[in-house]
């Protein structure tokens, strides 16, 4: 293996992207055998797999650059809650299918311009991951859109439930567009995407879909945050327990 110069800033950014992908992939995977239709079982696991694929490359990159020599598995299975840097939106319980679909809409509408921007990142691995992910997330967005419209503009009950799901997840989207010192540094270096440039496109996409779905854009001033600093929601511990228990209970086991 060729050695790579340590760059803890890029490592931390790759980890944020990788943690977002892995945690959302895990949440989507929870729908296995529980979706309202067989086709949706397959669809949600396909989406999960796309996120997992991106996460593997990004976590590997983070481990290469942070100087610790940790593998993708070390990072996925052996970190405790405060060391995870995903946005809180990714870890929220999927709730019912309507809530899962509204989260999918908010995330895909964010990731489409994100991966587009990162396709020209100066970090070649991030750019490579982004170049593949941008094609995949276009499918994710189309999938989320069609379900949010179908449920929102569906029956009274489906409308009520998808609106309730949207109201619950909406406040968490603000964290996706926060800037901190790390981002300032990496935007200047051409590594990271500038969230200020992503938000207008995100808002336009989401508002168009919600209008078509006859749903109301929630109004709130509550902006929960902390995921990037390792402060997570209660449910995240349970997610990690499920993700990690096998690996931790049987260290070094292989198939």
């Amino acid at each position, binding site marked *: 293996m060729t050695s790579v110069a340590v760059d803890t800033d890029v490592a931390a950014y790759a980890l944020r992207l990788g943690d977002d992908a892995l945690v959302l992939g895990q949440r989507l995977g929870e729908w296995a055998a529980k979706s309202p239709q067989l086709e949706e079982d397959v669809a949600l696991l396909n989406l*999960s*797999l*796309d996120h*997992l694929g991106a996460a593997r490359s990004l976590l590997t990159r983070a481990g290469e650059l942070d100087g610790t020599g940790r593998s993708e598995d070390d990072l996925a299975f052996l970190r405790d809650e405060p060391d995870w840097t995903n946005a809180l939106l990714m870890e929220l319980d999927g709730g019912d299918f309507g809530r899962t679909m509204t989260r999918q809409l908010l995330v895909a509408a964010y990731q489409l311009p994100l991966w587009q921007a990162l396709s020209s990142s100066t970090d070649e691995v991030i750019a490579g991951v982004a170049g593949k*992910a941008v094609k995949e997330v276009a499918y994710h967005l*189309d999938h989320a*859109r069609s379900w949010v419209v179908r449920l929102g503009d569906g029956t009274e009950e489906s409308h009520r439930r998808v609106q309730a799901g949207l109201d619950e997840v909406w406040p968490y989207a603000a964290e996706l567009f926060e800037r901190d010192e790390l981002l300032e540094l990496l935007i200047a270096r051409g590594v990271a995407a500038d969230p200020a440039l992503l938000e207008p496109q995100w808002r336009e996409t989401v508002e168009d879909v919600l209008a078509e779905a006859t749903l109301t854009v929630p109004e709130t001033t509550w902006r929960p945050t902390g995921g990037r600093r390792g402060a997570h929601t209660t449910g995240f511990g349970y997610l990690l327990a499920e993700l990690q228990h096998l690996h931790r209970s049987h260290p070094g086991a292989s198939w």
Partner: protein
Amino acid sequence: MVTTVERVREVLSTVTDPEIPVITIEDLGILRDVQVDGEHVTVTITPTYSGCPAMDEIRADIRTALADQGVDDVEVKMVLSPAWTTDWMSDSGRDKLRAFGIAPPERRPGGPVLVTLGRRPASPACPQCGSRDTEELTRFASTSCKSLWRCLSCREPFDHFKDH
């Protein structure tokens, strides 16, 4: 025997996709490069989709096929960039898919595939009867790279290798 790029490529032309065994990794366009330096062989592949679970198996199949021919010093590298596209699929690969019952991706002008909101994909021809009167049942099917369709003429369901 001397290891040459031609010989390695010939061996690799027997390595097929584990999920679609009628098509080789070369037909699929995921075999990106072969380099030979003395006895050391470097094979470069790229995944179709980021999470394609067949990659580990393909990597192992490449090693096994070469080892069977006495080529043991093999490094299989995976690259993500440039991102794989169905444009790299060979014409013979497309024919093999069709004969296998999978509608191949369409040949189209260059440039990235844009999946626009709410767009219905162009209908692929039914691989059984050739009719264009087909409908999409689900965008996500048995593998990441395929969607599930139904022919409205002969009523047969079929997989479609998605344009990507």
